[in-house]
């Protein structure tokens, strides 16, 4: 029996009718021990505390004595189940009468009833328990109450160990614990009022022996703003959460809703070897990201850095196109505005971000790199809330509010300010037809028609556009003059339905539809227009057939009518291509065609727990691509072993497949007969949970790629073939320090050493991948200072990217340009990259809200990092292209 005070409880206030006083009852459950107490308060009004209340419920004032506050439990000592009692049929109750002193201690226990064998244990335990004393007119008072101590028969050990656990911390915004805060837990399949407990002096709480499923958690504390969160618990896993409550506005009138900024933290159940769940409230403070949680992916282990911070996601040495971003199971068409400036989805609407660098679940297909799963949250249902934020880059507004009893709505919009200043940075010979501007918008409607169903509708999108006019041709290419324009737009309507069929089965249905357009043009010779009307459907059923076996199966379908209009130099593989020739030297090709890309996928996963400590997940995925007529069957296996309370060992092996890009298989400019690209992932890792705050992980990985799509030699027909292979191997070490009341610092440290190589043709030797970065070190930390100040630093050190030397140029006499002669591909490296970012934020509490002022400085010491090489017109001279200089971004945010 666990002696820790892992209390599962449920409580509420309800009017009851025992005459002669106020009575409250509380049901508390330990491992095998249930305690029910009635709190009798003499001749005062009677109350009974018995079952869960709604999330925002406050203690109503007693009817007759408004200033009387009954004692509340702070901690209940656990009584051992008597060893000489062999078995009991059900709970055993010992009825006690106790005095709760005005310092919260218990004295003078009297046994009023109960089996003899249990009495001594109950008395001993109750004397070691602590209460928040009763108070009358604000002063602590001593009261005698009746307390019912109930022993539950101990559950079989094995059964207990396959339950899940939710544990965590409740603090104020400074990280100080809030003793006595009330946590109420209600299962999504539970129709009752759930269970509740009060946190102890250290602010911690634990709900143990929980069945797997989603839980709605309500957190309330006197003088703090209540909140409600949705958490998931999985058998055999610990879901750790941290709730940070804002102080209530004491100047507000009673009953006013006040704001809070607390967020839930959840370590999701792993279906992969390595799954890093990003804590939103931490990552929105990562310096250098301007509060953008999705930008903070860059500090995670295994994530490479694209030149100029261009927004491409490079995961464990994979090409950016090999990885996918999912928003609630649906691929997100675009992650960042203007190639990395800021993400297209408001971070304040995110519940969590999960980063899966490899060996991902069979749920995910059509990609051979890594996965980022972005989970939006439900809009707030406890009143109107809003956030307005201005920075030098953009401004955003977000509003969320309830609609009726079971629905809530969030609306967000953002617009950039770059267009207001852009012209000032351009040379005279470049005209601005349309200054760069981006927008994004989000709306989320969440509706819970029953306790078992959740419907969520989203409409979101983004638009980026700019258009310039180049009066004069570029120094080395006569084709680079005239209009340059780029616009990308997408709008997605997404609906999801989650149904908890019963305690063991859950159904997810997600569907999305929306147009995506890319329009690019430069001069008269380069045009690329793409229109995709993407339809995506995913249905997944998870059924726990026994405590040791869960079956998951699903289908996802990507149906994409698309139209491509291309005119320009012949398409070619850009990775490993070295310096490209000027457009003027190329024969212009064009194609225009429409088609429908139909890509169905089926998957099944068997999660087996041979023992409580061992989890095996065997998955199988089938994918078909009608553009190439090719299919793939990918088996995947993951094993997780909780070796000790501290050490977790994990490993995975699996196949992954991906269809070619649309353009690569397009007629006229590509090869419609291409096959799918494949890779095998193998990984082995160790996770160490050294303390409640400190975690370390070490992961090793190996990937082999084959059937990579590469250009034919010099672009002869059929232009693209599946002749490329690749190999990637490395190790990642990461540490996370979570904030605690004693040390309000959260910090990430990650180091990756890896090598990523490619071979384009059988006769070639392996060469380095364009973004092979041997060493990637990221340090990031934010320290919460008193008076609502916070300061954070992010430091990154990354090996320079490989580059292909240009050994000279050949004069193209027909077009009057030089074409570069590339040396050995990626045979030299740029200088190492390092950069320090700083973020300082100060908050002020105001009536019904708060304001924050922040400054986010990128590249504090103005390091001129080498991002590439520029060449003169005949390639006889070169110079380095420097990255972005120091960029301070000042912003202000207001919340109500």
């Amino acid at each position, binding site marked *: 029996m666990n002696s820790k005070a892992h209390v599962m409880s449920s409580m509420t206030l309800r009017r009851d009718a025992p005459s002669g006083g106020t009575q409250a009852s509380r049901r508390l459950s330990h491992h095998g021990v249930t305690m029910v107490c009635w709190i009798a308060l003499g001749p005062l009004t009677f109350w009974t505390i018995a079952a869960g209340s709604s999330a925002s419920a406050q203690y109503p004032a007693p009817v007759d004595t408004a200033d009387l506050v009954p004692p509340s439990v702070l901690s209940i000592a656990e009584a051992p189940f008597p060893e000489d009692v062999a078995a009991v049929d059900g709970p055993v109750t010992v009825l006690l009468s106790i005095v709760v002193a005005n310092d919260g201690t218990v004295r003078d226990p009297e046994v009023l009833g109960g089996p003899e064998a249990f009495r001594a244990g109950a008395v001993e335990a109750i004397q070691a328990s602590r209460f928040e004393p009763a108070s009358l007119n604000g002063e602590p008072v001593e009261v005698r109450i009746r307390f019912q101590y109930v022993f539950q028969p101990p559950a079989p050990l094995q059964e207990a160990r396959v339950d899940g656990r939710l544990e965590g911390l409740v603090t104020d915004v400074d990280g100080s614990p809030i003793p006595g805060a009330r946590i109420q837990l209600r299962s999504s399949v539970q129709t009752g009022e759930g269970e509740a407990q009060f946190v102890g002096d250290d602010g911690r709480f634990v709900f143990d022996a929980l069945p797997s499923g989603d839980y709605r958690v309500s957190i309330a504390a006197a003088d703090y703003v209540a909140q409600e969160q949705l958490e998931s618990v999985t058998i055999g896993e610990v879901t750790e959460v941290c709730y940070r409550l804002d102080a209530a506005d004491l100047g507000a009138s009673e009953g006013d809703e006040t704001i809070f900024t607390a967020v839930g933290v959840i370590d999701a159940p792993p279906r992969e070897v390595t799954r890093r769940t990003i804590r939103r409230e931490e990552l929105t403070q990562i310096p250098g990201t301007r509060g953008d949680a999705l930008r903070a992916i860059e500090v995670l282990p295994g994530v490479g850095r694209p030149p100029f911070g261009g927004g491409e996601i490079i995961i464990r040495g994979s090409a950016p196109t090999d990885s996918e971003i999912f928003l609630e199971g649906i691929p997100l068409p675009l992650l960042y505005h203007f190639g990395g400036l800021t993400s297209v989805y408001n971070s304040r609407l995110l519940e969590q971000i999960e980063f899966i660098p490899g060996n991902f679940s069979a749920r995910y297909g059509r990609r051979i790199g890594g996965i980022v799963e972005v989970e939006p949250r439900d809009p707030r249902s406890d009143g109107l809330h809003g956030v307005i934020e201005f920075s030098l880059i953009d401004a955003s507004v977000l509003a969320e509010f309830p609609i009726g009893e079971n629905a809530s709505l969030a609306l967000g919009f953002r617009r950039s300010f770059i267009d207001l200043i852009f012209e000032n940075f351009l040379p005279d010979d470049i005209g601005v037809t349309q200054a760069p501007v981006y927008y994004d918008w989000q709306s989320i409607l969440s509706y819970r028609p029953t306790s078992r169903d959740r419907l969520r509708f989203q409409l979101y999108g983004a638009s980026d556009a700019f258009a310039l006019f180049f*009066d004069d041709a570029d120094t080395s290419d006569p084709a680079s003059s005239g209009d340059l324009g780029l616009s990308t737009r997408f709008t997605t309507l997404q609906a999801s339905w989650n149904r908890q069929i019963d305690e063991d089965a859950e159904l997810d249905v997600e569907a999305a539809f929306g147009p995506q357009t890319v329009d690019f043009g430069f001069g008269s010779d380069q045009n690329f227009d793409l229109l995709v009307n993407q339809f995506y459907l995913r249905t997944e059923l998870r059924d726990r057939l026994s405590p040791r076996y869960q079956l998951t199966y699903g289908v996802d379908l990507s149906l994409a009518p698309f139209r491509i209009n291309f005119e320009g130099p012949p398409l070619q593989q850009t990775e490993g291509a070295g310096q490209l020739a000027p457009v003027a030297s190329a024969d212009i090709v064009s194609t225009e065609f429409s088609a429908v890309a139909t890509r169905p996928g089926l998957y099944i996963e068997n999660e087996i727990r041979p023992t409580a400590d061992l989890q095996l997940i065997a998955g199988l995925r089938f994918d078909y691509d009608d553009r190439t007529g090719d299919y793939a069957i990918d088996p995947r296996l993951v094993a997780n072993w909780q070796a000790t309370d501290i050490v977790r060992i994990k490993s995975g092996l699996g196949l992954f497949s991906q269809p070619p890009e649309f353009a690569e298989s397009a007629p006229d400019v590509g090869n419609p007969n291409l096959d799918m690209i494949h890779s095998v992932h193998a990984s082995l890792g160790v996770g160490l949970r050294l303390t409640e705050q400190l975690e370390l992980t070490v992961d090793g990985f190996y990937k082999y790629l084959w059937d990579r799509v590469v250009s034919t030699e010099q672009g002869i027909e059929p232009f693209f073939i599946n002749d490329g292979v690749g190999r990637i191997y490395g190790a990642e070490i990461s540490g996370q320090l979570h904030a605690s009341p004693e040390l309000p610092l959260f910090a990430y440290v990650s180091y990756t050493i890896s090598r990523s190589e490619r071979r384009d043709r059988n006769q070639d030797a392996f060469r380095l991948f364009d973004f092979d970065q041997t060493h990637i070190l990221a340090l990031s930390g934010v320290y919460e200072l008193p008076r609502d100040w916070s300061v954070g630093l992010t430091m990154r050190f990354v090996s320079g990217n490989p580059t292909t030397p240009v050994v000279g140029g050949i004069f193209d006499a027909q077009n009057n340009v030089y074409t570069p002669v590339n040396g050995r591909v990626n045979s030299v490296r740029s200088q190492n990259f390092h950069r320090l970012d700083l973020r300082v934020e100060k908050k002020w509490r105001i009536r019904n809200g708060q304001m924050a002022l922040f400054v986010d400085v990128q590249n504090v010491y103005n390091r001129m990092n080498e991002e590439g090489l520029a060449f003169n017109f005949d390639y006889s001279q070169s*110079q380095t292209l420097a990255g972005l200089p120091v960029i301070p971004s000042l912003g202000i945010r207001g919340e109500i």
Partner: protein
Amino acid sequence: MKIVALLLLFSVSACEDNFDPPSLLARSRILGLAFSVEGDPDRTDPLRGETVDLRVLWAFPNEPLPLSFQGIACVALQTGFGVPTCDPDFGVIAELEANAPAGDMPVLTLRVPDDFPEGRELLLFGGTCAGGPVDTLLLPADGSFDTSALDVCERPEDTGELLQTTLPIPIDIADANRSPSLLVDMTLAGQPLATGNLQTGDACSERKDLPLLRVGGPRVALVVSASPESLEPLTPEGDVNPENEVLQVGLMITSGEANANFLLIEADDLIEDTTIRPAREAERSPGSDGSIERIILSVRDGRGGLVVQDVAYCLLEAEP
């Protein structure tokens, strides 16, 4: 695509390079190859069985230098990108070599074989040196080129260039291209530009026929125009609507900087202009007599036609 745009944005906003302007004629530079079919000198495309003369054109900032050329002609492999290559199925058609004393240009003579494959292009690849001979090791024996051997000249002090061009071999003479006409009008700061055998650096303060610019002076407009006849109609492959060819005017100047290195004269726009920035004081000291500065314009039709125009203006000392 996003990266291209982003890099472009950075390149235009924050990353000005420190290279010499490409328009600056500070050393001997290749201008191109001019083709002329024997017996029909305006025509640039030879038919099968015809002979074509190739002149190697250079620009010199000062005195001209002796020139040399070595190369080969072959059937071009149909490629999409990369260094041009001979089609190994056909071998080398001819090895070409020519030398010329200072002031002259090497002239190569090539006869197109009667059995030149239909629909294919002729590839000419070679090296040319200003000041001395081409390194004989450069000449490939089998039509493949060692592009890592980029020391074109025998003597390191000479200036060498690798060059290549492709030439269509039409079946019908009506499809053949003709060399573009010379530009019909050229003005600098509103004054006509002088042509003729003018030498960079010669005194010019007394010459009234030259536009006068001063060291450190403002940018002035260079206007060039072509006659409508210069733009031949052509029918792009796979298209039924005829278009006119586009003239590309390349600029080299012996001092200062041209705002653009290329002007594109399109069918409906027969005049193009750019600006010329006179040399700054630190760059040039023309002396009290002024100095002749030259502008070399190469006019291409993009189909093998090339003519060169050498014009001049007078650069005076900065305003006192």
